[in-house]
C-alpha cells in the first residue's frame, strides 16, 4: 500500500451525508474514495474494490453483512474493526455518538487512520446538525399553522381579537409550563371532539 492515499469506501444509504463526507475526505487529500449506496451484493462490491478503510453509518443494518469479512479466509486481506483498539475509548465514544463505524484493513498505520476518522466524525456531526435544523424549521412551521388555527377558534368562541387570542395562548402555556404549540394542539383536539 505504501504511503499513497488509502482507498476508502463509504457505505451509506443517505446520498447527502455520503457526499458531505466524500467532499471532506477529498479536500483533506484522500483521493481514493468510493461511495456504495446499494446494499445488494455489498460484500462482492467491497471485495472487488479491495479498500483499506470502510466507513459505515451505525443506522445501516448492513453492518452485520460486513462482519462476514472476518470469517472468509479466502479474502485477500482481513479487516479489523475500529472497536478492537480499546486504548482509544474517547475516539470510539465520539464515533458512536456521531453514528459512524469504521473497518480498517490490518496493516494500515494507526496515525494514518486518525485523521480519516476525525474528519468522518466531524462531517457526520455536521450532517446531524443540518438534519436537526431542518427538522426544527419544519416543526416550527407546523407549530405556526396549529397556533393560527387555535387563535381562530378562540377568536370565534370567545369573541377575542387576534392579539388577545395569542396572549391567552401564551399565558396559558406559561402557566402550564408547556409550549404554545402544545396548548394550541390541545385546543384543536378539544374542538374536534366537541364538534
Amino acid at each position, binding site marked *: 500500500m505504501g504511503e499513497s492515499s488509502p482507498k476508502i469506501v463509504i457505505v451509506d444509504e443517505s446520498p447527502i451525508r455520503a457526499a458531505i463526507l466524500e467532499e471532506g475526505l477529498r479536500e483533506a487529500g484522500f483521493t481514493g474514495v468510493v461511495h456504495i449506496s446499494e446494499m*445488494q451484493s455489498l460484500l462482492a462490491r467491497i471485495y472487488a474494490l479491495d479498500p483499506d478503510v470502510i466507513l459505515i453509518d451505525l443506522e*445501516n443494518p448492513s453492518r452485520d*453483512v460486513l462482519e462476514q469479512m472476518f470469517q472468509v479466509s479466502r479474502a485477500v486481506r482481513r479487516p479489523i474493526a475500529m472497536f478492537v483498539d480499546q486504548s482509544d475509548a474517547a475516539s470510539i465514544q465520539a464515533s458512536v455518538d456521531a453514528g459512524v463505524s469504521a473497518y480498517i484493513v490490518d496493516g494500515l498505520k494507526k496515525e494514518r487512520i486518525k485523521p480519516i476518522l476525525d474528519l468522518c466524525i466531524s462531517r457526520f456531526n455536521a450532517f446531524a446538525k443540518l438534519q436537526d435544523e431542518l427538522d426544527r424549521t419544519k416543526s416550527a412551521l407546523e407549530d405556526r399553522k396549529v397556533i393560527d388555527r387555535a387563535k381562530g377558534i378562540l377568536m370565534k368562541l370567545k369573541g377575542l381579537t387576534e392579539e388577545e387570542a395569542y396572549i391567552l395562548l401564551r399565558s396559558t402555556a406559561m402557566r402550564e409550563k408547556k409550549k404554545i404549540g402544545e396548548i394550541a394542539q390541545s385546543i384543536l383536539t378539544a374542538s374536534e371532539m366537541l364538534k
Partner: protein
Amino acid sequence: MTIPLRIGFIPLCDAAALIVAVDKGFAAAEGLDVTLVREVSWSNVRDKLNIGLFDAAHLLAPVAIASSLGLGHVKVPIAAPFNLGLNGNAITVSPALHAAIMAEISGDPVDPMATALALARVVAKRRKSGAEPLTFGMTFPFSTHNYQLRFWMAAGGVDPDEDVRLVVLPPPYMVDSLASGHVDAFCVGAPWNSVAVDLGVGHILHFVADILVRAVEKVLAVRQDWSEKNPEVLAALVRAASRAAEFIEQPQNRAEAARILAQPERIGVDAEVVQRTLDGRLKISPDGTVRESSRYLLVGREGATRPDPVQAAWLYAQMVRWGQASISPAALRTAQAVFRPDLYDAALGRDGKLTDAPGAIGAFAGPPFDANDIPGHLAAFAIRRRKS
C-alpha cells in the same frame, strides 16, 4: 429509588420477555427504570454493550460466547443469566426451491433428514446443469441460524462452504431478498418467516425445533464486570424478565402480549403475526396450510429461561466444527462460563433443580451431544472445517 438502565434489542419476537417486562411494568415494580433501545444490527448491539452504552442487551447466544472468547473481535467477557428464548427460528425457501425439494423428496417433509437428502440431490442436479449454487441467507456469522442451517444441510451431505453460498442478511432485508431471487432460502427468527409466507414469496420448510429439540436462541446479556459490580440490579432485572416470561406463557395473556410486542417502537408488525409465533401456529405455505408445534418458540415454559451450560458447549462445538474457533479445554470452559444458572437461581431463589426441563439439544442427526468430549463428538460428522 429507581435505577435507570439502557437495554438494546433487535425487533424480533424472542425479545418478548424483555419488552413485556418493561411495557407491562414488571421492571418498574423491581425498581428499574428501563429505556429499551431498538437497534438495527447485532454489531451495534454487541459494540454498544461492550463499550458500556448499554447496561444489558437482547443478544444472540453465540455472540455472547464469541465476545467472551474474543473471536473475530474485541474480547469482552459476557455474562448471560437468563435465556430470552429457546428455538423460534425457521427455514424458509422460495417457491421454486420448495418445488425442487418436493420433487426429490422421499419420506415425510417434516423430517429434516428427508429434506436434507432431497436438498443434496437438488444441489447435485444444479451442479451438473451448470446452474449457480443456491444461496442461503442467515443473520450473523456467530448466530444460531448459521449453525442450524449448516447442521441441517451437512446431515444430508451438502457442504455449506463448498456446495452452496451462505450469506449474512439483516432480518428486515430477508423477505425482499427472497422475493427478488437474491437468496433461495433463509433461516431467521420470527416474524420474518411468516411475513414471507403471507406475501406469497416463501414456504416454511422447517421449524428449528425439527432440527434441534431444544436450542438456546437469545440471551439477556450483560458485561461480566457489570454483573459483578451490580449484582442486585441484575437480580432485579432477571426477576422482571422471569415474571414477563411467565405472563406471556399464560394463554389468556397472549393477545395482550402480542399487542404490546406489535407496537411500532417495539417489533412493529401486526399483533396477529406475533401471536401466531407465540402460539406456535404458523401458516407455512402461501396456500394457507397451517402447521402447529408446541416447541416453536419457548419463552417461559419447560424451564426455557434457565441458562444451561451444555447449550453453550454445543454452540462452541459448532464454532469449532465450522472453523471459527480452535478447540481447547480453556476455551470450552470460557464458553460454558458465559451461561450463568447460578445468577439465575440466586435472583429467583431457586435451588437449581429443574422439574420440567427435558434433556438438552436433541439433534436429529449424529450421536447425542457430549459436552465432555467435543473432539469425539465432532469426529462423528463427516463435513467439517479446520481452523485456518
